């Protein structure tokens, strides 16, 4: 029975593919097709759920965990990427729970999304996501997890930007995906390190072999996995993306940020318990990150004025707690917390619109101690400036750098390579007067070279001409002075640029690259 587990993601992906093909080629009215998309998704997730239940029952009566290898995905030398699943009790339990929630979500969304323009798109992405999520949970090696990881990230991008003509929504979607990519980079690194030092990424083998490897390398592996988990679970410092991710329809927000995807990071941590416990430093980091996230979620949550916002911050806080449990070594406890939190939060998210109707009162006011402390209150409203900090450290320098590079390309590289300019127009009156007086650009009467060699010839000729005219003929004085002055301005420019933090950063990175 266990070897059919690969069908769990496949069911959902086939449904997604079918809906996608319908979007492309179907000529039937999109409203009439709503039923098809809905039933297709319901059946696929229902089948996945049934299959998992059967596997659960078999597992209850047989040996606890089983490791299924379906075959080789691809391989190159010692890098063998297997398609494998590890069905241990925790994986099966979480997978069943998640699939159940997904199944219910699909049922819920059918009415919620009815007559929405993006009905089919929504269901397509939800199916893609459900398959990806089950792969993260059931996958027997890091490669499988990575596949699910990235697909889940893309689905989240597509659903945050569900309302495609709202600029803010798409902006937040982009931000979410880019932040997620940092985590993906961590995962790629972890995959490589595992291949290089352990020779495999299969969980079972890694668990066996990891204790025989030196602490520094285990620490590195754990660190890169930690980066991946933190980015996905939106732990400080990666938190800001998740509170902005609630742009999509309620069912998708629930599925991604309230329940399933946000827990993927914690789940990964429990899955790699064997690696983490080898390196105390990483465990300590986990604790610190957990505590920081709890503070962040709790403080910012207190000042939220809308229900989704406060639910989201509360979720973040709980994730922080789970990180803390992992850091303390209570992995099973974290898993229990995960399961219970998922179930409760899913209910809360779905119920939240109705709660406003039923309760019919204002949100709780901010507690006294917080509203009296101006500084703290401000910090909470600003969400502890985590986002601004990230922007100032990463986004802004890269943007500036890109602008600088563009100038460099146009002003330095292209002229240096020496090809025909697009225009030979003079740029200013002063230029024109210079030209008339034959001060600059006089070499152009001699001949215009084209191409690399032509350019060299022309430059050499021009430079000699200039040298002769300015220095030899006029003697010392004006020419030399002008030259020095110009050189001085250039140097000031370069000096100014070097002092910019982004260039300092680049130099550090460069040194790093050269040394390694």
């Amino acid at each position, binding site marked *: 029975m266990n070897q059919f587990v690969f069908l769990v993601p496949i069911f959902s992906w086939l449904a997604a593919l079918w809906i996608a093909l319908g*979007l*492309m080629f179907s000529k039937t009215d999109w409203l009439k097709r709503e039923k098809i998309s809905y039933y297709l998704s319901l059946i696929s997730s229902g089948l996945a759920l049934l299959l998992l239940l059967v596997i659960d029952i078999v597992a209850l009566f047989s040996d606890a965990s089983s490791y299924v290898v379906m075959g*080789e*995905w*691809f*391989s*190159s*030398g010692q*890098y063998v990427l297997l398609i494998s699943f590890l069905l241990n009790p925790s994986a099966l339990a979480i997978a069943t729970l998640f699939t159940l929630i997904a199944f219910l979500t699909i049922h819920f969304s059918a009415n919620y999304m009815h007559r929405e323009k993006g009905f089919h798109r929504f269901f397509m992405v939800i199916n893609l996501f459900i398959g990806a999520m089950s792969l993260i949970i059931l996958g027997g090696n890091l490669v499988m997890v990575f*596949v699910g990881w*990235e*697909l889940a990230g*893309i689905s989240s*991008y597509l659903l945050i*930007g569900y309302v*495609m*003509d*709202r*600029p803010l929504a*798409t*902006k937040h*979607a*982009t931000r979410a*995906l*880019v932040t997620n*990519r*940092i985590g*993906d*980079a961590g995962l*790629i*690194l972890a*995959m*490589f390190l595992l*291949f*290089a030092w352990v020779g495999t990424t299969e969980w079972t083998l890694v668990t066996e072999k990891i204790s025989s490897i030196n602490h520094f390398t285990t620490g590195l592996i754990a660190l890169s996995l930690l980066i991946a988990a933190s980015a996905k679970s939106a732990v400080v410092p990666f938190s800001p993306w998740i509170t902005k991710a609630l742009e999509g329809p309620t069912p998708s927000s629930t599925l991604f940020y309230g329940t399933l995807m946000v827990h993927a990071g914690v789940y990964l941590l429990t899955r790699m318990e064997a690696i983490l416990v080898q390196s105390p430093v990483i465990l300590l980091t986990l604790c610190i990150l957990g505590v920081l996230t709890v503070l962040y979620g709790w403080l910012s949550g207190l000042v939220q004025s809308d229900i989704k916002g406060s639910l989201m911050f509360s979720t973040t806080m709980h994730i922080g707690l789970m990180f803390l449990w992992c850091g303390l070594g209570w992995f099973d406890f974290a898993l229990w917390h995960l399961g219970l939190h998922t179930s409760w939060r899913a209910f809360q998210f779905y119920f939240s619109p109705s709660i406003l109707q039923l309760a019919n009162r204002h949100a709780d006011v901010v507690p006294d101690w917080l509203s009296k402390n101006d500084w703290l209150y401000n910090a909470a409203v600003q969400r502890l400036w985590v986002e601004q900090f990230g922007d100032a450290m990463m986004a802004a320098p*890269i*943007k500036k*750098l*890109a*602008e600088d*590079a*563009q100038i460099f*390309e146009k002003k330095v*590289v*292209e002229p*240096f*390579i020496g*090809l*025909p300019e*697009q225009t030979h127009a003079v740029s200013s009156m002063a230029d024109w007067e210079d030209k008339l007086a034959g001060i600059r650009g006089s070499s152009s009467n001699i001949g215009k070279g*084209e*191409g*690399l*060699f032509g350019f060299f010839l022309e430059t050499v000729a021009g430079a000699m001409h200039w040298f002769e005219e300015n220095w030899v003929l006029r003697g010392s004085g004006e020419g030399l002075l002008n030259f020095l002055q110009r050189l001085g301005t250039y140097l000031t420019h370069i000096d100014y640029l070097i002092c910019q933090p982004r260039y300092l950063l680049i130099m550090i*990175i460069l040194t*790093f*690259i*050269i*040394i*390694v």
Partner: protein
Amino acid sequence: MYIPLSDFPLISLIFIVLTSASLLVWLFPDKQQAKWVALIAMSVALVFSIMMVAAFDSQNANFQFIEKHSWISTINVFYHVGVDGISLLFLPLTLLIGIASLVASWTKVSNMPRLFYTLLLLLETATIGVFSSLDTILFFMFWEMTLFPLFFLISFWGVGPARRLAAVRYILFMMAGGVALLFAFVLLALDHAEHQGHLVFDLVTLMENPVATELQIVVFFLLFLGFAPKIPVFPLHTWLPSIAMEGPMAVSALLTGLKLGAFGLIRFLIPLTPDAALKFHWLLAGIGVTGIIYGAILAYAQTNIRQMLAYASISHVGLVVLGIASLNLQGIQGSVFQLINFVIVSGGLFLLVGFLHHRTGTTDILGLGGVVNTMPLLTGFVLFLGLASLALPGTSGFPAEFLIIVSALDVHTGAGFAVIITMVLSAAYFLTIYRKIFLGKATSIVVIHAVDLKGRELAVAVIMSSMVVVLGSFPSLIIDLISQSTEAWAGLVSHP
């Protein structure tokens, strides 16, 4: 009598079909029939090339489908063609992207259609020649033969105002490189003449008898100088963005999709100068990394999606150079896979952007925005191929980039880290410009009145996307074909 398919001169047949079609185009009275002639010829050639893939023995690392005839006997130049696992797949892919470009610009060539199709067919012939020739002089001839069709295609049918300049710029770059190439090949031949008594231009013989290390170093730099502009590497890349802006979309797709320069590194540079490559692999890696980072950062600064794609392509080809520089199995397999992936993804993206340009007359964020409202399919396919270029698992980009990254981390760890950092940047540059052009509210009048992909265009998009999915889900299809030859390649230059 039964003749096995592998003994059939299939490569020559492809040449004959394509070149004779380029003449045949002129015989039909109706100008509009020219495109049909071109399409049929390319399809027939595609069938031949697929037959080659079917008959290819993937367990054999040697060249297959070899044809060797004396050509210029006085200096020992042969008409010597054949393919191994590394070059085999580029033949059908060249024809496929050619057909896709042809179909994509089906109604767009009204000016001198016969000449256009003749030149396109000649370009295809020359490109296939580059991929399949096993004689350095023959290779050089095909290499230079790609230039003149490109020159006229860009300067006559380009879409930008400065297309002539762009064409001149391109040709000058390539000519400059060509000199170095020829010089290197002649040096090699002369050295062999000294030892063996006759000139040797034959690639297989040259590979079997590498020259002395000192000479290898000279040849290494000459060959690299020759291939560098075509790859392109920083700072010799400036022609690519200008071609992307000025050239016709079909040609941009061919030029960015088929990375002849990188193929040259794999086929000629490393196997001919293995010792020099072992000495200077760090230089190749450095140049590769520079390209990756520089291209990615510049792509982030672009406001025009064609420019962005051009810089992204510089960044991605840097990855291939880095993979080659690793000089190990993963590196070469990843690089070949990435080159195959390029044809589909980069080529496909340029064609899709071409559809957008055809409808709206611009690809700049200034004149666009909210394309999704009227062209949801186009938006979807651009996103899909874009994600493939970000190496999303399940698309053909993933196995390629994964193999290159692990090989780089293995050999040039620092460079590998740099690549991992650019993974994040690549998502940023693609999605930022994608958001500004395709998402949001449609404000421009040309966008509001545009129609979505239909018929022919949809077929091109669907074929490209399904290839991405198939190769991404079953990477072994490709890796099995290339594994023996790449292992032999890596065996030539086992890293210390």
